[in-house]
């Protein structure tokens, strides 16, 4: 009988703890348990057999920590041999017991993935792939990825299992009592991602006892459409006379597990501290219970690494601003690989209330797959909203889906055969909800009927790939109403039809409707309300538009989606009556939501609010670090004076003043940086102006900055970057944990005059030294400045640096002496 058949009718039982049983048999603290697969196979067989005799169905191999990081090539033990022996030991026990399945056990790698730690997603995938291949070769029956405390790592493990084997894959996560992963993800986000990746069962293990797991199990059962697994510890641990003991016994363990089984959990077992006795009691109580597979929950869900967004009655706002169409500044940012600008677009939309961010970085002449990957990585390292991957470049789509930390929204597929053949396999492989445009080879039908027919064809074709209707959002499409006066009605009718005919979910890019008309917001907002009334589930729109957000908040209040109008009152209750003029955008109004990060600077003591401007020049604003005020001042100044004049006679002197104060010890780092940020904001205004007139500001020269290989603490380097940019240097920031080769390659290719390196720890100074040595060989013209907590003047000399910079101002001064003065000398 196969596991996936058996699970349809009865509870399946996993085994219990392994570590404590091995310790009881003589495994020493610090000894790697996996080595016993080879050294003491008889012990492993005995333990597996005890569990099987206690009634468990699934024995897990002793391979929790068996990966290339712990067993490097050429070490004392061969990884493949360890895994093979582990599977053989479990298989021998199964053969002797006459029943059971062997689960290849995969625990966490022990390292955190980037951007949290230093392990690449691809590297994590490779580590798991190796284990999967060895386990399959040895004849495992299923794969169990367990004790995963990071969803991203779980994704690497499950993807490796799914792509390199045909075995059933189970995955269990370790949640705390609040239902959170150590990396912050909640239950719903984990379930969405794992189901998207096609696991055959999912659940929770370790960390808690069965009592504490009940609530989390209930949450999972409510939303999961695949069998649910619960493998708790033997209770909550405490230390007694140097030994770990648990707060409940076998009897209590079994009793609570029976309750969990009765709640509907399909696979039951144990983790740390549980023994064959615990499993025996559990099996005794649950053996006769019948069960069926969970029903399809039919929920349309996407997720980020922290939370999920459900598309149902309550409409979802997808921010459309990360898109270069019609935006010259955005195009420039793409050409310059200016991720900071793109990030800012994302943050602003989040501050204004977007639930999901659309990401479109397509521009002729750029490497879109690379740009898409970089952008998605950057966004998901800072912003916790789910992303909508928006591209027609299939390579870019796949790259982004692969490294995405969650279950993404995909934009888009359409009714063309070619499109479906290309996109559906990706959706099936990586999981995701896909936007389906109701157009095909013959274009966009004029009628709702025509569009619904295409929708039906899309649903049917998706089903052939195993993609469920819940993972498809039908885009009813809207054409500009100025060219077709029936256009809006057709769209609305299509929305209605998708609900009625298929019970499906819908999405719409709302802004197209007003193309070619004046005051587009007016039409957009009304159309948006009409679409919402037809049950639109998600809108791709500009959340920075206050008119649109008003339509959204009003609709929710009117449609019984905002209890006691709480959200509406929160947002608009405090506004003065005159603050609600039509057509004003949130960026200009004083809405509380609009004041995310960007409003910080305005709240200072001397600043006052934006409305009450007292006489204060640009240079004062910069000295005091008042960002918004500085922007206003520079706009005023630009009416009368040349950009360069403003830079040289207002901004630079202010920066010098602050820099000197910092050096003298009368001003401190936060102030120095607030001033720098105010100056930067003012520069942005000037840059926008110059982009309009085709001028550009001359940079003094390029400086490469990098935090060296092995070091992931880059705060100091980033401070230096902010200041150097203020002083008109072009900074090429290579990031953290940067290989010496990469630094040398960039220095040579761009022939830069100066490289700045940072290192925080004594353990990473050697890679700083190595970088310097290589730079001397390949780029002898380069000056090298170094900084970081453990460095001193003397230490810097011994590793061959040209200059030790004790702080950020010192690096600016050194750059001035190397680059500016040299230039003068050359002249």
């Amino acid at each position, binding site marked *: 009988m196969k596991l996936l058949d058996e699970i349809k009718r009865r509870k399946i039982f996993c085994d219990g703890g392994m570590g404590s049983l091995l310790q009881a048999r003589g495994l020493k*603290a*610090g000894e790697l348990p996996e080595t016993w697969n080879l050294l003491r196979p008889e012990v492993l067989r005995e333990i597996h057999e005890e569990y099987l005799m206690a009634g468990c169905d699934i024995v897990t191999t002793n391979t929790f920590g068996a990966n290339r990081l712990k067993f490097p090539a050429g070490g004392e033990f061969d990884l493949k041999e360890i895994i093979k022996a582990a599977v053989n030991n479990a298989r021998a026990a199964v053969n002797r017991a006459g029943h059971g399945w062997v689960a290849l056990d995969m625990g*966490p790698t*022990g*390292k955190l993935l980037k*951007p*949290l*730690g*230093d392990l690449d997603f691809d590297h994590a995938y490779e580590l798991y792939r190796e284990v999967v291949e060895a386990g399959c070769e040895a004849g495992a029956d299923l794969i169990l990825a367990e*004790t995963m*405390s990071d969803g991203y790592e779980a994704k690497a493990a499950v993807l490796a299992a799914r792509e390199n084997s045909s075995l059933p894959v189970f995955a269990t996560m*370790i949640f*705390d009592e609040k239902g*959170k992963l*150590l*990396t*912050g993800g909640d239950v719903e986000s984990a379930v969405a991602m794992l189901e998207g990746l096609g696991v055959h069962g999912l659940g929770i293990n*370790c*960390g808690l006892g069965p009592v504490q797991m009940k609530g989390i199990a209930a949450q999972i059962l409510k939303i999961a459409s695949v069998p649910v697994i619960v493998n708790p510890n033997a209770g909550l641990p405490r*230390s007694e006379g*140097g030994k770990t003991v648990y707060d409940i016994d076998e009897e209590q363990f079994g009793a609570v597990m029976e309750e969990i089984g009765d709640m509907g959990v399909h696979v039951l077992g144990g983790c740390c501290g549980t023994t064959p006795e615990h499993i025996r009691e559990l099996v005794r109580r649950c053996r006769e219970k019948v069960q069926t597979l969970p029903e399809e929950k039919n929920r349309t869900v996407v997720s980020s690494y922290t939370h999920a967004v459900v598309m149902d009655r309550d409409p979802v706002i997808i921010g459309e601003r990360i898109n270069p169409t019609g935006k010259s500044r955005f195009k420039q940012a793409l050409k310059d690989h200016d991720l*900071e600008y793109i*990030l*800012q677009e994302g*943050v602003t939309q989040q501050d204004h209330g977007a639930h999901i961010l659309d990401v479109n970085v397509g521009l002729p002449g750029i490497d879109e797959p690379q740009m898409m990957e970089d952008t998605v990585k*950057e966004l998901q*390292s*800072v912003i916790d909203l789910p992303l909508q991957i928006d591209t027609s470049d299939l390579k870019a789509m796949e790259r982004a889906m692969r490294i995405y930390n969650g279950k993404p929204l995909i934009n888009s597929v359409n009714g063309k055969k070619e499109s479906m053949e290309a996109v559906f396999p990706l959706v099936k492989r990586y999981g995701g909800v896909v936007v389906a445009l109701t157009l095909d080879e013959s274009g966009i039908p004029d009628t709702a009927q025509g569009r619904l027919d295409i929708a039906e064809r899309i649903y049917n074709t998706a089903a052939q790939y195993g993609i469920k209707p819940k993972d498809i959002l039908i885009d009813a499409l809207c054409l500009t109403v100025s060219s077709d006066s029936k256009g809006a009605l057709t769209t609305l009718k299509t929305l209605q039809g998708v609900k009625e005919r298929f019970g499906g979910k819908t999405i719409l890019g709302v802004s197209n409707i007003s193309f070619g008309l004046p005051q587009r917001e007016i039409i957009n907002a009304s159309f948006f309300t009409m679409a919402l009334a037809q049950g639109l589930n998600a809108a791709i729109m500009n959340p920075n538009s206050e008119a649109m957000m008003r339509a959204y908040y009003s609709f929710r209040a009117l449609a019984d989606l905002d209890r006691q109008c709480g959200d509406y009152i929160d947002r608009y209750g405090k506004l003065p009556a005159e603050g609600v003029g039509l057509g004003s955008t949130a960026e200009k109004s004083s809405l509380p939501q609009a004041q995310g*990060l960007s409003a*910080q600077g305005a709240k*200072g*003591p001397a600043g006052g609010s934006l409305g009450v401007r007292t006489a204060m020049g640009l240079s004062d604003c910069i000295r*005091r*670090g008042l960002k918004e005020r500085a922007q206003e001042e520079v706009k005023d100044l630009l009416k009368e004076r040349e950009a360069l004049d403003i830079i040289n006679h207002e901004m630079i002197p202010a920066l010098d003043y602050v820099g000197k104060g910092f050096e003298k*010890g*009368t001003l*401190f*780092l*936060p*102030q120095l*940086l*607030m001033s*720098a*940020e105010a100056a930067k904001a003012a520069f942005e205004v000037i840059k926008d102006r110059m982009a309009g007139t085709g001028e550009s500001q001359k940079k003094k020269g390029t400086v490469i900055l990098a935090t060296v290989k*092995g*070091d*992931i*603490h*880059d*705060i100091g380097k*980033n*401070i230096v970057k*902010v200041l150097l940019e203020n002083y008109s240097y072009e900074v090429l920031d290579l990031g953290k*944990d940067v290989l010496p080769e990469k630094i040398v390659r960039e220095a040579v290719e761009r022939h830069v005059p100066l490289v700045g390196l940072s290192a*925080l*720890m*004594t*353990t*990473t100074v050697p*890679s700083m030294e190595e970088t310097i040595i290589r730079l001397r060989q390949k780029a002898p013209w380069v000056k090298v400045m170094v900084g970081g907590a453990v460095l001193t003047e003397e230490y810097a000399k011994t590793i061959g640096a040209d200059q030790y910079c004790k702080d950020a101002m010192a690096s600016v001064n050194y750059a001035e002496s190397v680059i500016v003065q040299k230039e003068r000398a050359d002249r």
Partner: protein
Amino acid sequence: MNLRETLRYLGYRGHKPDEQTLSLIEECWRELEGAAVKKALYREFPLGFLDDGRLDMGCFKTKSQALSKNLADCGHVLLFAATLGIQADNLIRRYTRLKMSKAVVMQAAAAAMLEDYCDEINEELKQAYEKKGLYLRPRFSPGYGDFPLECQPEFLRGLEAGKRMGITLTDSLLMVPSKSVTAVIGVSSQKGDCRVKGCESCPQKECQYRRKAI
């Protein structure tokens, strides 16, 4: 909120902050209090002094004169770990991208918060042990003075700190989450001098962040 320590980490050396910085510090503490997921773990091991001068801490052996001095009359050690969780790192990373001034203040506030948290747990332990007639020595962390960082993998494994509190190591032995501490706390039947702790016990006397005696 521990303003004094936050300012020390920001390099204020006794100077008063301006109002804008002060409100930024308050804001950072508020956000951190909301985000941090504090966890602490400790486990007692018998302490052995080996003939070759090394110390045997149960789950690892190490050599450090400073630590040997610190543990001179101890029979046991507590291996201690604490963290603010990856959520503190997330905040710092977020502001590193969006607002550097806030990132540096956040970084300082998190360092101060972690130290306070360690002190709090340490104090509880101290009182619990004193009831048993035992006395704790000051916390001493790998990386302080000549106590090598190389023991970190075994140290953390001995506590199961990866699984139980999410502390991992990079290839160069830095802890992630970065706002994490590991420390050895000596347990002795003799009352000892407990005044010198953490910062003051470090030999880097010229460090600009060094705590000044009050």
